[in-house]
């Protein structure tokens, strides 16, 4: 004991200084706090009378908000003694040591740990059980741990059932909940989920998504194979109903327990369980309204026609040729007159307000032997793209069985079935209705019109510009995704002795996605195949995943002399997975009524698919040691083997066994609960103060199933199939190594009225997977190697406070996270990637994935001004042409007077400076009110939609700002000229399209009213919920919505490719308990 203290001395003084500083901040902000500190320092004198050996401690327990003394509260020293408070809230308990802690729990109240710090008498106040406390238990992989005793960086969210937020999926639910977890919802499509970046990026090409573990079984959320529906990806996490989740625990630092799958942190999800044998039934029903987003202002018919004539004048057409175009002819006797003189707001046609519904039934109960939780639910959520929507049915059955006094078992079965009607989104200029709704000529009609203007019930076909009818895209295109997921597990625990447990869990996952698409002939632009023009198109796709998982361990837990707590776990996790995707595409069926692949023309049909199998073994060892509930030491180590690893992998942390390579990944963390020290008894305003630090190695095994092997792929010669080399094998291929360093402090002040948690972290990836350019003479472009590296550093801050603690309770929370990324190693020091029309630079010394394009400085107002500057651009054939008036003034970086690739520079950064949230929970009488504000600051977005709407180079309808385009020499404007085909590249990838993506959003607001019910009737309680989502968003972003993430890849971040935007929705619900 002594050496530890000596060694820690300088830390203490440091800590003390920090505490002082913090207390000053707190005191400045809250006069009330100062008064409390000054008036109540009487216990200080007691510290001197330390007693060793059994002593009696007395005290009182009261309600923190009402001040009433509480009876029936449990006071325990685990494994030693226990007591209950009496009617006056008084208790008396024997403790083994005066420096120990006592545990305080009671129904309806928070769990609290009180360090005696030498005191013989303690006055304890408790908050209600929904209070977010530093003593809450996190559901860690090896058992529940109170947060104040964890030395890793962990957040725990007790969801409380989430009865008021039914439209969320577990991933989107996490938005704003955890500092440092940047949750970006992929789009507004119902249940589409979110991409999660916990503490930024750790990898360029492997996954950056955290590992999900549901009830002890790894939950595979990767998608295997591509969707046929543009811009869509099935979200497996949506198969877990948010109302079935009890707790979500996020491990943010390098806890290596999950070895090569824990690179991006671990999210442990615990689904509903009940200890209560009484049968309880909850039924809830919700209905809501989804509201279309604010339209992007595009031109009406008149402006558009003027724009077209301006534009066409810059093409090769003569004025006479332009005049006779049907849409330029204003003679109403012209037979085409009515077809080109309409006022259609196409955005109205492709978006519609819609409704959502949700029903949930939950039954819990059981007996001494078995308890169960059964939940059934259905959800129906229409999107705001017309004719889209999701229907989903959930079923979950969790049972806990007590088979004997030593043997217990759990069985969890979950089945989900969804059907989602979608439309193509993203970059698809032919079938994406949102895109078509913006760019379609406004003077065109929805339906076919006769020469006299009479309307036919048939939709207008592809227009004179070759553009699809957006209404045909909405009404006639079929994009249907059906998804089933079964996940089941059986867990057995055998208590061998009082201290030794063995347990095994077997989990089975079966996931199937079936998709069907059909694109009709009528109204949609045709596609050209190598053998024919595709009139109509059909597709069918099956993606399937089968995964078997086992985790078997032996654990040893013992408390020695009420001083030493030791917990040791050793075991192995084994995961075997196989995925398969099969698709078929058909073309040119006889009519648009034949919508399946089989009806397409035989010669045009295409099939394809992929199979992937892999195995993963993780042998782990964990030991947690706690001394005096004050000093915590945790050691984890994993030894991982995988079928993906190369047989010749080398490096320092590699073990060899039976010709296979194993990753050895240890981590260590230490914590010091300073507040439990005797000397802290004087610092009364601090309830809990913990310093912690961790250092861990984790790995990322997302390196491709067969990359390390040399393989051959199929190559045809006419109809014969031959084989050619598929790769340069990399037998040395290994997992990415990520070293994670974290230091943090957790503090609770003033009887937990104010909590603060601060983390500083540094993640460093080595052996990062990279597509390394290789010598031309190899015949390959790339070899996949471990020659990359990056680091990410950041700070996270969480503050929670109870601002008002009377009958009206107001909790406010703030969390902030930063993650600054820097590439440290790349084979050629830099790398250019492209996505969605954007070019990105990834270069050593800079953050990954920076927008890389041209900088602009206004436009040339006159031809003379352009000539004066003397810059030129390169034509397609390599010749140079000078810029002219109305052209964008690009910055000539290299001074060559030619604007070309050498003038590209970093023009934006899609990575935010910081992200975070502000939460508010207010409760008053039977009302409770919850408001979550999320924000992100400093990230840039490439607005590809605006690029399409302001390029002024083709027949696309344009935004209203284009009206202000440069038209005559000397005109003062900031909008460049219209020019057919954009020869001078005014619309090239430049800072014109880069916008600030910062936003602050009222993400969720909900109001709950607990209806008073009479005693004795069958209904035990009833609650009414009113919830609003995304009601207010403050942003300068000009697109539909600034929150978007096209995929989980680093290289697609910050690019607005035109996915369904986030929209506002409101919901009313009622829940009745029986």
């Amino acid at each position: 004991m002594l050496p530890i203290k000596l060694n820690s001395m300088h830390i203490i003084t440091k800590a003390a200084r920090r505490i002082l500083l913090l207390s000053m901040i707190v005191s400045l902000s809250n006069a009330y706090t100062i008064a409390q500190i000054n008036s109540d320092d009487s216990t200080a004198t007691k510290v001197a009378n330390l007693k060793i050996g059994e002593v009696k401690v007395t005290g009182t327990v009261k309600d923190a908000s009402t001040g009433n003394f509480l009876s029936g509260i449990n006071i325990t020293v685990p494994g030693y003694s226990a007591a209950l408070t009496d009617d006056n809230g008084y208790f008396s308990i024997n403790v083994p040591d005066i420096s120990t802690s006592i545990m305080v729990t009671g129904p309806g109240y928070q769990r609290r740990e009180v360090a005696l710090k030498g005191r013989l008498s303690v006055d304890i106040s408790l908050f209600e059980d929904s209070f977010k406390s530093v003593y809450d238990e996190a559901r860690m992989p090896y058992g529940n741990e109170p947060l104040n005793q964890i030395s890793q960086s962990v957040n725990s969210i007790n969801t409380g059932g989430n009865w008021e937020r039914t439209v969320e999926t577990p991933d989107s639910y996490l938005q704003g909940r955890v500092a440092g977890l940047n949750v970006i919802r992929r789009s507004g499509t119902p249940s589409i989920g979110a991409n999660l970046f916990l503490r930024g990026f750790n990898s360029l090409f492997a996954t950056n998504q955290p590992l999900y573990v549901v009830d002890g079984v790894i939950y595979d959320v990767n998608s295997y194979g591509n969707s046929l529906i543009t811009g869509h990806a099935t979200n497996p996490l949506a198969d877990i109903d948010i109302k079935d989740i009890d707790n979500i625990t996020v491990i943010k630092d390098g806890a290596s327990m999950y070895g090569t799958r824990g690179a991006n942190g671990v999210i442990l999800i615990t689904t509903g369980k009940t200890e209560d044998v009484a049968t309880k039934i909850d039924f809830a029903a919700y209905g809501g309204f989804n509201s279309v987003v604010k339209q992007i202002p595009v031109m009406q018919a008149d402006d558009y026609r003027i724009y077209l004539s301006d534009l066409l004048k810059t093409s090769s057409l003569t004025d006479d040729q332009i005049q006779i175009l049907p849409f330029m002819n204003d003679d109403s006797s012209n037979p085409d007159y009515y077809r080109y003189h309409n006022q259609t707001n196409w955005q109205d046609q492709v978006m519609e307000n819609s409704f959502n519904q949700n029903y949930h039934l939950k039954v819990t109960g059981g007996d001494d032997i078995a308890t169960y939780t059964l939940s059934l639910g259905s959800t129906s959520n229409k999107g705001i793209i017309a004719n889209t929507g999701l229907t989903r049915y959930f079923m979950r059955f969790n049972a806990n069985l007590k088979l004997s006094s030593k043997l217990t078992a759990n069985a969890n079965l979950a089945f989900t079935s969804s059907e989602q009607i979608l439309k193509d989104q993203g970059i698809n200029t032919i079938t994406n209705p949102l895109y078509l709704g913006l760019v379609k000529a406004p003077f065109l009609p929805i339906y076919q019109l006769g020469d006299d203007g009479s309307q036919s019930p048939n939709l207008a076909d592809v227009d004179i510009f070759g553009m699809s009818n957006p209404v045909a895209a909405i009404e006639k295109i079929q994009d249907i995704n059906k998804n089933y997921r079964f996940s089941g597990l059986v867990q057995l625990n055998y208590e061998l002795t009082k201290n030794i447990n063995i347990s095994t869990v077997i989990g089975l996952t079966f996931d199937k996605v079936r998709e069907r698409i059909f694109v009709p002939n009528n109204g949609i632009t045709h596609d050209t195949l190598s053998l024919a023009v595709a009139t109509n198109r059909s597709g069918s796709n099956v993606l399937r995943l089968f995964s078997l998982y086992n985790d078997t361990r032996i654990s040893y837990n013992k408390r020695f002399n009420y001083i030493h707590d030791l917990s040791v776990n050793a075991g192995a996790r084994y995961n075997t997975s196989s995925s398969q995707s099969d698709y078929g595409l058909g073309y040119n069926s006889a009519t648009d009524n034949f919508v399946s692949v089989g009806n397409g023309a035989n010669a045009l049909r295409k099939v394809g698919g992929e199979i992937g199998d892999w195995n993963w073994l993780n042998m782990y060892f964990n030991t947690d040691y706690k001394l005096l509930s004050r000093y915590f030491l945790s050691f984890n180590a994993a030894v991982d083997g995988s079928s993906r690893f190369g047989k010749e992998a080398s490096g320092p942390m590699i073990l060899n066994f039976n010709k296979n390579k194993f990753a050895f990944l240890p981590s260590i963390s230490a914590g010091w609960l300073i507040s439990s020290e005797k000397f802290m008894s004087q610092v009364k305003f601090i309830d809990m103060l913990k310093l912690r630090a961790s250092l861990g190695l984790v790995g990322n095994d997302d390196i491709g199933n067969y990359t390390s092997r040399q393989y051959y792929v199929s190559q045809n010669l006419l109809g014969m199939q031959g084989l050619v080399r598929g790769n340069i094998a990399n037998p040395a291929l290994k997992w990415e190594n990520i070293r994670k360093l974290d230091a943090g402090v957790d503090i609770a002040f003033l009887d937990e009225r104010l909590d603060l948690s601060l983390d500083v972290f540094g993640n460093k990836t080595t052996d990062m997977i990279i597509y390394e350019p290789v010598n031309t003479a190899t015949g390959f472009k790339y070899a996949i190697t471990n020659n990359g590296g990056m680091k990410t550093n950041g700070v996270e801050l969480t503050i929670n406070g109870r601002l008002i603690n009377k009958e009206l309770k107001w909790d406010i929370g703030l969390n902030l996270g930063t993650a600054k990324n820097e590439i440290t190693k790349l084979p050629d020091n830099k790398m250019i990637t492209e996505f969605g029309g954007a070019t990105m630079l990834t270069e050593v010394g800079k953050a990954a994935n920076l927008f890389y394009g041209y900088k602009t400085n206004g436009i040339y107002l006159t031809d003379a001004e352009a000539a004066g500057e003397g810059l030129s651009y390169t034509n397609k054939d390599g010749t140079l042409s000078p810029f002219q008036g109305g052209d964008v003034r690009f910055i000539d970086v290299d001074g060559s007077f030619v604007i070309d690739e050498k003038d590209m520079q970093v023009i934006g950064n899609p990575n935010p400076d910081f992200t975070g949230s502000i939460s508010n929970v207010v409760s008053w009488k039977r009302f409770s009110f919850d408001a979550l504000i999320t924000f992100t600051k400093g990230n840039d977005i490439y607005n590809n939609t605006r690029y399409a709407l302001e390029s002024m180079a083709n027949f696309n309808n344009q935004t209203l700002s284009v009206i202000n385009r440069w038209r005559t020499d000397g005109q003062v404007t900031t909008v460049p000229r219209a020019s057919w085909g954009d020869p001078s590249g005014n619309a090239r990838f430049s800072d014109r399209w880069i916008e600030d993506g910062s936003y602050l959003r009222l993400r969720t607001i909900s109001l709950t009213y607990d209806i008073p019910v009479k005693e004795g009737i069958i209904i035990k309680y009833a609650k009414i919920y009113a919830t609003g989502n995304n009601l207010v968003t403050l942003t300068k972003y000009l697109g539909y919505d600034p929150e978007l993430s096209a995929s989980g890849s680093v290289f697609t971040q910050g690019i607005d490719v035109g996915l369904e935007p986030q929209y506002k929705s409101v919901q009313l619900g009622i829940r009745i308990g029986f």
Partner: protein
Amino acid sequence: MKNKLSIKFIGVFPVVICLSILSCTKTFDILPKSAISSEQMYRNVYDADAAVIGIYGKFLNVLDRYVILNELRADLADVTPNADRYLVQLSTHSVTEDNPYADPRPFYEVILNCNDALKNFDIMRAERKMDEDQYKQRYSDIGALRTWLYLQLGIQYGSIPYVTDPIENINDLKDDSKYPEISFNELLDNLIQFAEALPYNLPYPTGSTLRTTVDTYNTEKIFINKNCLLGDLYLWKGNWTSAATAYRAVMTIGEVTRLQNEEQYLEIYKLANTSNINGGNWINIFRNAFGERYSNYEIMWNIPYDKNFNPKNPFIDLFSTSGKYLIKPSDLAINNWDAQYRNDNGALPGTPGDRRGLGFSYKITATQPEINKYTYNYNPLLPFETNGKIILYRGANLFLRFAEAANHDGRDRIAYSFLNDGIKANFDDNTKSLGKARDVTNTEQTRYPFPGGPYETAPYYFDAREGDFPQYRNTWFRNTGIRARVSTMNITVDSARSFNMTVKPRVLTSSDNLIYDMDNLIIAESGLETAFEGNRWGDLLRIALRRQATEPNYLANKIGAKFDASHSADAAAVRAKLSDKANWYLPFRWK
């Protein structure tokens, strides 16, 4: 006690599980399901066939590049206004390293697979997974194809890395000795050495699993002709007799006895006079479908494009005015044809024009000249009917190159015969009485010197006797020259430069001049005959290298003439560039 035992038992439980998973080596040894792991490849002759097929499948991907580089950089093809700057760069010899057409990687993609197959064929032979014949045929085929690819790389890039290792894993990337960079000349030595050692130089024999018919296409001529290749290598190196010998070997393919198969005996590979591909039917060589009987006489190596299979015929987009129309015949090429005279309507000196010019090698579509050799059958109204073929070696190449070798070997008369109107007409010393109605026993055969010298021996002995008393219809009797075959007037050298014309018979005064002038005629003829087929840059470069010392501006002038003919402002710049040998080659992009 019991408890302790069970603790021990239970304690080993996870360990047992781990060990059982670990000990099963298969756990971490999963073979790919949608690809073939190297362990599963090269197990029997069918795997070897799959390798050959795969290599040829990939080989198709370099062919558009082959045509573009060899034509656009030379004098007979030019860019259209639709061409992008990279094509323009090729034409004006100002190629930058980022030019995608100049990327050598596609060649190396095939080479890598050749290297892989060659190495594994050796292993298979050693392990008796293929019999000796199977091995020889496949090894030689792939070896020859790799040699052809390297010859092309040498022609385009000069010094190149000569990689013969199959680069199996990333450790091979670090070993610089696997990428030795050698000069074009060293490359030729290496290639000749390698090609001479190939154990088999005939097409796959009947009965071979690779000689078959697939999707109606007979595979016999899809695979490279090794003797043509060997002849070309010698020609590049200047080993004239060896070149002639190799070419001669091709000419004698199918020489069975006359009674068995007259057509093969007389016509295939003999540049024979057959009405189906003569005169105005010359275009049949390109127009007729792959494998069609008569055009097949002429073709030694060709590959079909079928609309149902990848890759798509790339030449329609490239050349057709209904496609992207990126490359067109140069004005110079058109002028060249226009400067010829036909002899098929009796009037002398003949009708201006050439049966290989307008309407044949090119056509005019709505005032735009269009390369016709690949698009003759293409109908813009049926845009998906893109079947076609590319001819990589045919009789005209063979005979003109033989002529080139023969000329340098002093056999200017043989060269002249093949260029103009055939052996029989030019080796007849009985000039007074021609025809069959005489005894031709001692004439109509090659002699050296001619007349009066002894009969030639191989490879220069050609027996073209055709007489009825006694009857002769000897192997070469229907041989005709390149020009006579398309009814074009004979072309001759300016005798005054090489002969003393004042005495009779004329006396050769400068064999150098004669060889030089004849060389020029051959190369000009090659342009008229094989334009747009992917030979031109190689032909010009070969001459230019040969004349480096004596005529360093040969290439500059040849290419400059293209820009002169089109009155392009680039002429001077191109001439200046090409007057420096360093600019004859494309920049080699290393990554």
